[in-house]
């Protein structure tokens, strides 16, 4: 009897092992077209520099005030803190000893030169779609950077997230290397946009929900960026930041300059515009706009009609609005000149109110870009209004002039006072 049980157990374990082996994310190797693809020619380096902008590599691989690409930026996650590595050409601390194949393996398969599995904070779940030719050009560019001897700081992750075994399990569940597949039914512009958005652009790193293990569904349905405290709105829902009804020119303008009629980027998206998108050529940004515009629209399902704030909140909120906001945003939230309308403002009426709360608390400037070099700023109100006042004001804004989003509480405001700004 025991023998039969043991045999059965053995069979089940063997079946599981075979299933795991079959599902195991295999390394996918695509050879370089020729060594010329990553040779240190000015054409390759220039092309790689441009692609590095598209991938926004510098934003993560540079610490505040540190040497570009020398790493050291802390990435806070629910699993602990990751420190980005040095990717300059230094032979000891950087990637100076790497080959073009090593670099491809990191981008495409999420593995380091020594075979270690990389954490998906490095968005190889998106970068896996980058073509070998683009990977080689990027490599040529990174190799051309002056070596910076900056020691990598070890990650500070909690158990079990700090183990390669856990990472192997994660990859088994959530990662498969794969090249970008052209959609033959669409034109070249759409396909170029899809390639940039889904690949180097790694838009889904923020604009999609992550599960409890930090895996994103790779869609663009919106998601709360954990620990950073911003909500990256859905790019597929018309009630959020879906672009189906936007003019293509306005999308291009927003992505390249940081502002467009009635809209302005803030938070992490301001960084993306400042460091990445404003440096791309108009054709590429337009391709991204075309692709984003083609994503299915509609309204996010399951959103219940919002409860309206009490009359008292509406009265007090109106008073605060008149004192603090109307001079710039207009008496009826219609917007004035460079200041966006609040009536019908989708950023304000997202179901998740964190962005609205943080904009009131922190204010801020749109990024300075070639297309908008001297941006207007909004004052912070964190030192002027207390939690209850901010909650009253934001609740009023979310329920006025045709807006119909749920009220917020002072506890919510308090939570977002404490999130790091940096």
């Amino acid at each position, binding site marked *: 009897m025991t023998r039969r049980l043991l045999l059965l157990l053995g069979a089940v374990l063997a079946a599981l092992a075979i299933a795991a082996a079959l599902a195991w994310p295999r390394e996918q190797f695509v050879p370089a077209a020729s060594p010329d693809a990553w040779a240190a020619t000015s054409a390759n380096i220039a092309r790689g520099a441009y692609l590095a902008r598209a991938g926004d590599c510098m934003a993560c691989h540079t610490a*505040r005030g540190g040497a570009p690409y020398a790493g050291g930026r802390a990435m806070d996650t629910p699993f602990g803190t990751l420190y980005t590595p040095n990717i300059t050409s230094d032979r000891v601390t950087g990637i100076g000893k790497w080959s073009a194949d090593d670099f491809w393996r990191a981008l495409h398969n999420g593995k380091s030169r020594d075979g270690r599995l990389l954490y998906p904070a490095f968005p190889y779940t998106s970068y896996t779609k980058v073509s070998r030719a683009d990977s080689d050009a990027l490599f040529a560019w990174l190799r051309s950077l002056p070596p910076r001897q900056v020691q990598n700081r070890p990650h500070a992750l909690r158990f079990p997230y700090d183990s390669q075994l856990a990472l192997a399990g994660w990859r088994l569940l959530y990662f498969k290397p794969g090249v970008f597949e052209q959609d033959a039914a669409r034109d070249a512009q759409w396909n170029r946009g899809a390639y940039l958005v889904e690949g180097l652009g790694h838009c889904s790193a923020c604009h999609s929900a992550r599960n409890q293990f930090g895996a994103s569904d790779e869609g663009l349905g919106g998601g709360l960026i954990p620990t950073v405290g911003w909500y990256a709105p859905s790019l597929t829902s018309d009630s959020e930041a879906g672009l189906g009804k936007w003019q293509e020119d306005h999308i291009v303008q927003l992505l390249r300059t940081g502002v467009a009629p009635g809209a302005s980027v803030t938070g992490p998206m301001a960084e993306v515009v400042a460091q990445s998108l404003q440096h791309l050529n108009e054709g590429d940004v337009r391709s991204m706009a075309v692709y984003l515009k083609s994503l299915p629209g509609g309204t996010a399902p399951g959103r219940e009609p919002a409860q309206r704030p009490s009359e008292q909140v509406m009265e007090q909120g109106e008073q605060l609005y008149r004192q603090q906001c109307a001079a710039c945003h207009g008496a009826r939230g219609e917007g004035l000149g460079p200041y966006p309308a609040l009536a019908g403002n989708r950023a304000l009426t997202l179901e998740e109110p964190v962005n609205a709360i943080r904009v009131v608390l922190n204010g801020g400037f749109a990024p300075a870009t070639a297309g908008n070099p*001297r941006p207007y700023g909004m004052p912070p109100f964190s030192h002027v209004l207390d939690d209850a006042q901010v909650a009253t004001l934001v609740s009023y804004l979310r329920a006025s002039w045709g807006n119909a989003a749920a009220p917020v509480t002072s506890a919510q405001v308090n939570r977002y006072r404490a999130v790091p700004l940096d």
Partner: protein
Amino acid sequence: MAAAALVCSIFGASAQSQPPGGKIPDTLEQRVAACIACHAPKDTAGTRAGGVYFPRIAGKPSGYLVNQLINFREGRRQYPLMTWMVNHLSDPYLHEIADYFASQHPPVPVPPPPREPAAVLARGEQLVRRGDPALKLPACVACHGAPLGGVAPGIPGLLNLPRDYVNAQLGAWRNGVRRAHAPDCMATIAERLSPGDVAAISAWLAGQPTPPDLRPLAHAERPLPLACGSAP
């Protein structure tokens, strides 16, 4: 009370910057309304501009101001809201903003009389005007100018600053979280200051009236007592 006064002063400032009729002027002043909200350089209501903590920036030398804006952006000064504000602003725009505030000379309120003991204030005045050779401390006036209005382009004035702000800056230098261009002379000086001496300096400075025509000096008296990267 203090909060109420601050709110009023901000209303005063923002109400002034808004002409009637709902047109938004295309001016730098309007673009930097976010800065004015805290640093309130046009506060004519007699309220201390910026309230209890935020420093006066109007009339400070432009070179000093732009160094600070860039230092916030590059992590050499720590005040998260300031880093947030300047994070994605370009050097040319920061220069323009610094020039704007350097050119402003709003009226300065008379400070309330200091409440510290006379001995503390005397120690503060001694350090500011004469320094303390035994501690190898040069006088503040040796670099910041005898009238304490700063020296163009890189040395700030020291009057009309909240006491807590001055305490916080000297503390930040001691702790290495505020840094300036090397050699960082103020870090060296802050290291030699005891907490009691910091308090004495800030108390005495905060009690000094600011002459309405105070401007940064055009040149520092050379050589400076210490080598300073911000005033090469």
